[in-house]
Each structure stands twice: as C-alpha cells, then as structure tokens.
C-alpha cells in the first residue's frame, strides 16, 4: 500500500502514523470535551473513565491510547508507543509537572531539552551557574534499530538539581529520544543514590510552529509536596519559553550550515541526523 502525501495534507508518513500526546489524562475536564489541535487539525479530547475519546472536530473518532498518564492519538495508523518501564515502578511518584503552550516547532523544544550548555545562562543558580559553564564530552548514538537517539555519560555541575536538592552536585544525565517529539531524561536521584529520577518532555504538535510542552515526572521523592514539585518545573520552564519563542527560524533547520554547532551540541547534531533518517518534514526546514 503506497503512502500518498496528498491524503495527509503534506504531512510526512512518520509523523502521520505516530502516536502524539494530546493532553494529560488527570487534567481533562470532568464533564465535556476539551478542544485542542493536533498536526494543524482541530480535535476534541474527552475523558471516559480511565480511557478517553479523541475526535476530529466535526468528524470521526481517532485512535486513542492512555499511557504514562497522558492521552495519545494519531491521524494515521499508529504502531506501538515507545516503552517507559519506569512508569510502572511502584516506588515512583508519577505526575504532570507542568504544561505550557509555546510558539515554536516541536523539534526546537526537544533540542532545548537535550541541551546542557544553556543551564548556566538560562537556569542560573538552579541547573547551572556561570562559574561552571563547561560541557564535558559525552556519548551520543542513534540506536542500531534506528528507533531512538541516546546520549549518555553527561556530567554537569548543578547548584540545585531537583526540588529536593540541598546543595550543588555534579550530576550525571542520560537522555533517550524514542519519539521525534518526546525526550526522556534520567538523572541521579538526590533521595535514592544509585537510581535515577525520570523527567520526560512530551510535546503535543498542535501545529508546525505551536506546541504544548508537557513535563512529566516519574520521580523517587516521597517528601516534596506536590505544589513545590510543580513550582520547580514551572520555574525552569518559564525560563526556557522566551528563549524558544525567540529562536529563529521557528522550524528546526535540517540543512547543512544552518547554524554553528560545537562539541557540546553533539546530541542536537545526532537528533537532527535522526530526523533526516526518519524523513520528518513536520516542523523542520529541509
């Protein structure tokens, strides 16, 4: 069966046939549907007990899945969603840290999430400080099956790495990008040495230049009250939002020499290469 771009309004097949996040399940209204957008189409999302219903506005039902606390849908014929096994670990607290509308493309938000070099300047005093701006070498690869980008051995000095931190630490990060618009961060848990807090960015692609960024927490922290956890995530995200909205062009350039990466940008270079391999055209400039 051939894939016709004309049937998808020009959206590339990889994007068309993926699951995309369309809302946090817990935060859907108790009665009635919420209107939102997916890949430029108006849709409605409605809670149905522990499930949900997603429809094109004035049209038919779309595929739906509830996973990791979020509702996922697709305009095409989706395969399996990526695995996030930590979600099922009994001693974790799973919650939506914050959701923000941002005027940028989905891949710009993912690149920002993968970027350690901005911590000292954008998240000064929290995730970094100007006295420790250097990004040490780290490893990055596209997995052999081509299904995700992985960056590991990332070390960075952080004055306040998490809501529960009491002082500065050298943290170790690992990133997975198992979906073009979803990235997962594994970072040393201040509460349980040897294990990782998991923080995920699930980007709802409302349009090519408008997104909702959802920060999902799967953390080993029984003590910090919910409002403090949320405030920490919000505080960080409000610092990123003006940067993202002033990054030009809004769509991520995939053509050569669009800008000037350095060694610290290895993760973003691999991510852009992976998007080219996937044939992604939504939200990018080729």
């Amino acid at each position, binding site marked *: 069966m051939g894939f016709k771009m004309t049937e998808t309004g020009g959206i590339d097949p990889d994007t068309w046939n993926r699951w995309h996040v369309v809302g946090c399940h817990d935060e859907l209204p108790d009665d009635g549907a919420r209107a939102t957008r997916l890949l430029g189409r108006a849709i409605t999302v409605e809670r149905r007990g522990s499930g949900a219903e997603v429809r094109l506005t004035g049209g038919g039902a779309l595929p739906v899945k509830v996973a990791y606390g979020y509702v996922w849908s697709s305009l095409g014929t989706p395969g399996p969603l990526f695995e996030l096994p930590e979600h099922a670990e009994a001693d974790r607290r799973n919650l939506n840290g914050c959701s923000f509308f941002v005027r940028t493309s989905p891949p710009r938000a993912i690149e920002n999430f993968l*970027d350690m070099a901005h911590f000292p300047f954008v998240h000064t005093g929290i995730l970094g400080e100007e006295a420790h701006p250097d990004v040490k070498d780290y490893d990055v690869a596209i997995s052999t099956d081509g299904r995700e980008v992985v960056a590991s051995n990332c070390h960075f000095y952080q004055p306040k790495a998490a809501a529960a931190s009491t002082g500065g630490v050298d943290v170790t990060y690992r990133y997975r990008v198992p979906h073009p618009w979803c990235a997962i961060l594994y970072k040393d848990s201040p509460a349980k040495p040897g294990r990782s807090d998991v923080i995920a960015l699930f980007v709802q692609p409302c349009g090519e230049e408008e997104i909702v960024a959802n920060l999902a927490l799967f953390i080993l922290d029984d003590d910090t009250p919910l409002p403090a956890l949320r405030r920490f995530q919000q505080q960080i995200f409000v610092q990123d939002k003006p*940067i993202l909205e*002033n*990054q*030009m062009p809004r769509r991520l350039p995939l053509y050569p020499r669009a*800008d000037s990466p350095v*060694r610290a940008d290895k993760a973003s270079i691999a991510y852009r290469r992976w998007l080219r391999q996937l044939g992604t055209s939504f939200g990018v400039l080729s």
Partner: protein
Amino acid sequence: MSYHPVASSRDLAGRHVFQACLLGQDIALWRADDGTVNAWENRCPHRGVRLSLGVNLGDRLMCRYHGWRYDSGSGACSHIPAHPEGPIPATLCARRFPVIEAGGLVFVALGDDTAALPTLPETAIPLRALPVGRPAEAIAAALAGAGLAAAGPLHFAETQGGATVHLLIQPASGTTCVIHGLADMSAEALPLQRHMSRLMESRRRAWEARP
C-alpha cells in the same frame, strides 16, 4: 541597497540592545561604551536566538541562550563558555550591516554598496517615531499626494510651526513602516513636538482606515 533610518540615536542607550526591522530583516542594534554603534542580524550564529535578548557588556554582546560573546565592531565570536579552552572557528561571526549615525537618527543598509545618506539638517531634533500599519510606498504616495516636497523616494519635508520638518520612512516589512521625524530647529521644541505628534496620529488614523 541604500541607507534607511531604523532608530533614533536616543533609542541606543548605554548597555541596551534595541530591536529594529528593515525590509523584513530583524536587526539587533547596540552601542558599545566607546560609542561604536553595531547593527547585526538579530540571530545568534550558534542556535538562532535573537541577539536582542542578549546582554550588552559594553564591548561585547552576550547571547542569552549559551552565553557566546561577540565583539563590538568586528562581530567576531570571542568566547564560547561550553568550551572555555577553545578553539573558536575564525569564521564565527555575527552578521553585520553597514550602519551610520547622522542627525540624531541611526541608518542601516542591508547590502554593502551603500548609496549616500539623505541630506539632513545640521541641528535637528528627533520627533517621536510613528509605526504605521501600511507599506512604506503607500505612505510615500500619501505624503506626496498631500503636497509634501520629496527629497528622496522615502524622504519628505514640510513646514510646520515655522520649522522645516523632515519625514523619513523606514520600510519595516512589506506591510508596515515607521516614520521618523526630524525638526530643523535648535530651541523651544516642545510645542512643535506636541503639534507633530497630534498631526501624525491623525494622519495615521486616516492612512490605516483606507487600505
């Protein structure tokens, strides 16, 4: 490509970064402590963040996203904090535009072959800049139609309150422009500034109402 007005000299206060738009090109304007005026593409060469969000350090501009620093004058990148030991590629440079300050206004040209500046009065007082939601050509036609003397395609003059007032049109985008006024006078500017403000506001209402 000729010089166009993009700001008044007073817009470039010390340690400020001013954002302007010329023919759809977003520009970051900043004055170094030694007086040098820099007009750069408003986009960091690293990852594209607007430089107008950055910090004017007096002799360098620091980008807000990753702290890269660009020297006043040359635009050369002189510091990449993520790799303090370098090396910095020699070609790494903010994209610069020719810029001249004259008569209390700042002029920028987008190309290199810059034509002469408009002839401006010696002792001129800048009037409040007026953004208009109409293309520069439409405003030029309207001013010509109202009988103002044309000193250039986007430069007009008229007599108001006993002084010669120059109106220079900045073509900001394809659909918008900014009118910069210069009053040729040395003293007692306030009544004329008020008069021009009211006059230009009412002209703008008429222009924008008639697309």
